[in-house]
C-alpha cells in the first residue's frame, strides 16, 4: 500500500469539511428541537437535595420512578448529602448561587433559610392548589415552617415525645406498665422500684431541654425555656425551678435517673444509651423507632407522656421539604412537592415502613400498620392531636445560640457540678448578650 503523505492543502480541506459538517449537525439539532413534541420541549430537570442513607434511597428512587412515569417531562436528579453535612452544604450552595430546586429542611432551619432567601414562599401555591389538602397537615407541624406569614416548607415527619418503657424490666419487677392516667407520682414510684443500683435506672438516659424535650420535662409543671416570642427565657420562674428540681433531684439525690458519667459508661462512642436496655423508662420519638426496632434487645412499648401539676404536655418536632428561592421551575417544584407530601406520598415514603410519623392524620393509619412500630403507637397520634406542641426556639435566628447556652449548662447539671439555681443564673447571664444583640 502506498504511503501517501497528507499535504497541508489536503489537511485544510479536511478540516474545513469537518467544521462545516459539525456546524450543520448542530443546526439540524436545533431545528429538530424546534419541531419536537411539547413534552420533549418542556423537559424539566428538578434537582433535589436530601439526606437519605443508602438503605433508604431505593424508596426514594421508587417514588421518583413512579412520579416521572406520570410526568414524563420531568427528571428528578437527586443529591444525597449525609445528615451531618446537609445544613452546611445548603449554605455553601446558597453562597455560590448553586442551590438545587428542592431541599430537605430540618425544623430548626426554616427561619434562617426562610429569612435568608434560600427558600421560596409556597403559601399561595399551597392554598391555591385544590388537590393539595394542606389543612389536613397537623397545624403544629405546619407552623414550624411559617415565618412572618410566609410558608417556607411543608412538613413530612413530625413526631411527639412519649414515654417509652422497657417491658422486660417492668415484667421482671412485676410492675404494671404505664397507663394514660400516669402522673408524676406514679412515674416516681415506678422509677424508684425499677432502679437496680449500678445496673438499671428507672429513667434515662438524660434530661434534655432541647426543642422537643423541654415541654415534656418542664411543661407538665407549667415551666418552659423560652417565651412564645423567643425574646426572653422563662427558666427563672417557680414553675421551671420546680420542674428542674424534680428531674435533677431524681438524678442526683434519688439516683433513679442516670447522670452524665453513667450515660457515658453505657453509651460511649456515640451509641444511643437507651438501646442498652439499662433504662426502664425513657423519652422516645417516632424517629427513634427504626433504631429501636433494629438494635434494641429488649421488648418495648410507648405510653402517653406523664401528667404533672400543670396537666399533660409534651414537645414535638420534625422536618420538611421546600422549594428554593432560586429555582427556575417553581411550578414543577411545587407539583412534585404537592404529590410527595400528599397523603399517598407520605404513606409511600415514610409511613408504610414506619420510618417516620407522617405530618398528616390521614396518612397515620399506614404508620400504625407498619411492621416495626410498637404496639401502642396510636398514642403518638393522640399526642399530636391533643397535647403536643412544637418546642421553641424555631422563630428567631438567635434562638439556636441561646439553646446552645442552655445545653452547655444542662451538661453541667447532668454531671452534678452545678445546682438548679446556678444553672438558671448561668443561663440567664450568658444568654443576656445574645438576646440584647
Amino acid at each position, binding site marked *: 500500500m502506498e504511503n501517501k503523505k497528507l499535504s497541508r492543502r489536503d489537511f485544510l480541506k479536511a478540516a474545513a469539511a469537518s467544521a462545516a459538517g459539525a456546524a450543520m449537525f448542530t443546526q439540524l439539532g436545533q431545528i429538530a428541537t424546534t419541531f419536537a413534541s411539547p413534552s420533549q420541549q418542556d423537559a424539566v430537570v428538578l434537582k433535589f437535595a436530601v439526606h437519605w442513607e443508602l438503605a433508604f434511597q431505593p424508596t426514594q428512587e421508587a417514588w421518583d420512578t413512579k412520579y416521572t412515569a406520570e410526568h414524563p417531562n420531568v427528571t428528578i436528579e437527586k443529591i444525597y448529602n449525609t445528615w451531618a453535612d446537609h445544613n452546611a452544604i445548603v449554605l455553601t450552595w446558597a453562597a455560590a448561587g448553586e442551590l438545587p430546586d428542592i431541599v430537605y429542611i430540618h425544623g430548626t432551619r426554616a427561619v434562617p433559610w426562610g429569612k435568608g*432567601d434560600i427558600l421560596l414562599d409556597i403559601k399561595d401555591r399551597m392554598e391555591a392548589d385544590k388537590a393539595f389538602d394542606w389543612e389536613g397537615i397537623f397545624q403544629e407541624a405546619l407552623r414550624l415552617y411559617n415565618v412572618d406569614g410566609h410558608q417556607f416548607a411543608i412538613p413530612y415527619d413530625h413526631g411527639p415525645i412519649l414515654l417509652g418503657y422497657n417491658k422486660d424490666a417492668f415484667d421482671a419487677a412485676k410492675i404494671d406498665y404505664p397507663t394514660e392516667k400516669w402522673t408524676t407520682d406514679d412515674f416516681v414510684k415506678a422509677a424508684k422500684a425499677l432502679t437496680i443500683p449500678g445496673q438499671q435506672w428507672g429513667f434515662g438516659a438524660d434530661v434534655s431541654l432541647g426543642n422537643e424535650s423541654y415541654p415534656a420535662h418542664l411543661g407538665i409543671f407549667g415551666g418552659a425555656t423560652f417565651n412564645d416570642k423567643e425574646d426572653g427565657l422563662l427558666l427563672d420562674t417557680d414553675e421551671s425551678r420546680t420542674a428542674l428540681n424534680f428531674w435533677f433531684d431524681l438524678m442526683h439525690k434519688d439516683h433513679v435517673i442516670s447522670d452524665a458519667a453513667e450515660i457515658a459508661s453505657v453509651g460511649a*462512642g456515640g451509641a444511643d444509651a437507651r438501646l442498652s436496655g439499662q433504662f426502664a423508662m425513657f423519652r422516645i420519638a417516632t424517629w427513634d423507632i427504626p433504631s429501636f426496632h433494629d438494635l434494641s434487645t429488649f421488648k418495648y412499648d410507648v405510653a402517653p407522656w406523664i401528667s404533672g401539676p400543670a396537666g399533660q404536655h409534651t414537645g414535638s418536632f420534625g422536618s420538611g421539604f421546600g422549594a428554593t428561592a432560586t429555582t427556575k421551575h417553581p411550578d414543577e417544584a411545587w407539583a412534585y412537592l404537592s404529590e410527595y407530601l400528599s397523603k399517598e406520598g407520605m404513606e409511600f415514603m415514610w409511613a408504610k415502613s414506619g420510618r417516620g410519623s407522617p405530618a398528616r392524620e390521614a396518612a397515620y393509619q399506614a404508620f400504625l400498620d407498619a411492621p416495626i412500630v410498637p404496639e401502642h403507637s396510636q398514642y403518638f397520634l393522640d399526642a399530636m392531636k391533643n397535647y403536643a406542641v412544637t418546642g421553641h426556639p424555631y422563630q428567631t435566628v438567635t434562638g439556636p445560640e441561646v439553646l446552645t447556652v442552655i445545653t452547655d449548662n444542662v451538661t453541667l447539671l447532668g454531671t452534678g457540678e452545678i445546682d438548679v439555681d446556678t444553672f438558671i443564673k448561668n443561663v440567664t447571664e450568658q444568654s443576656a448578650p445574645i438576646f440584647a444583640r
Partner: protein
Amino acid sequence: MALLPKRLTQLTLRQQEERSFYLFILPWLIGFVLFTGGPVVYSFLMSLTNWTGIKTRDWVGLDNYIHLLTLDPNFWIVMKNTFTYGIASVILGTLLALAVAILMNQKIPGIRILRTLYYLPSVTSGIAIAIMWGWMFNPKAGLINFLLSLFGIQGPNWFSSTLWAMPGLIIVSLWGIGPNMIILLAGLQGIPQQLYEAARIDGANRWHEFRYVTVPMLSPVLFYVAVITMIGSFQIFENVLVLTNGGPGTATRVFVFDLYQNAFVNSRMGYASAQAWILCVIIMVLTWLMFRISRRQVQYEVVEE
C-alpha cells in the same frame, strides 16, 4: 539544543532555569490563588460584615473584632482551652515523638515492622479514631480505667467531667505522633556517627551523647516538629466534636469548634470569619515567638565555602 526554539537558546542557563521554575510552579500557584488565596481575602472582607452566611451582609467595620475581644463571654474561655490544649499537646507530643523515634532508631530485629505499627494510626480515619477513644475512655468499661484499676486507681469520668475532659483530649492527641516520629527518625539517622564516636572518645556517657550531640544536631528538626504540632493543635476540631461536643459545659470548647458553631449553627458567618482571622494572627504570632526564642537553641549546620 537544536530542538529548542532559537529565542530560548539565547537565554542564559540561569534565565532558562528561572523560566522552568515559574512554569513548574504555575499550576500550583494558580490553584493557590483561586482556591486558597481568593477565599482567604474573601473571608477577611466577610469578617468586616455581619454576614449570616446567607443573606444579610452589611458593612460593620471592626465591630466583630471588637465584640470578640471585649464582649464575647466565650472568647476568653475558648482562648484558655485552646492554649491549654495547644501547649500541652505540643510539649507532650514532641517529647513522646522524640522518645519513640529514639526507640525506633535502634538496630534490633523487626524494627521496620515496629516503625510501621507506630505510624499506622496516622493513616486511620480521624472520626473512627475519635469514636474508638470514646470507648477507651468509657468510665466503666474502657481500657484506660481498667489499666488504672490494675494499680488500684479509680479512673475518672473523663469526658463527662469538666476536670478530666481536657486531659482526655490531650491524651487522644498523642495518638497522632506517627508523622512527627518519622520526621525525627529521619533527623536522627542524619546525625553523623563520627560525632558520637568523638564524644565517646572524650568520655561522654549516653546522657551526654543525647544532651550534647543528639539534641543540638536534631534541634532544627525538633523545632520544625514543634511548630507544625503547635499549628495543628490550635486547629483541633473533630476530636472535640465527636468526643465532647465542647463540654461538659464549656470545658473543652476550643477555638475552631466555637468558630464552627458560630458559622454553621448560629448563622454568624461574618463573626466566624473574624474568629478565623484572630486565630490566624495568634498562630502567626506564636510561630514568630517560637522562631525568636529558638534562635539560640536551634543550631543549624553551616557549610562554609
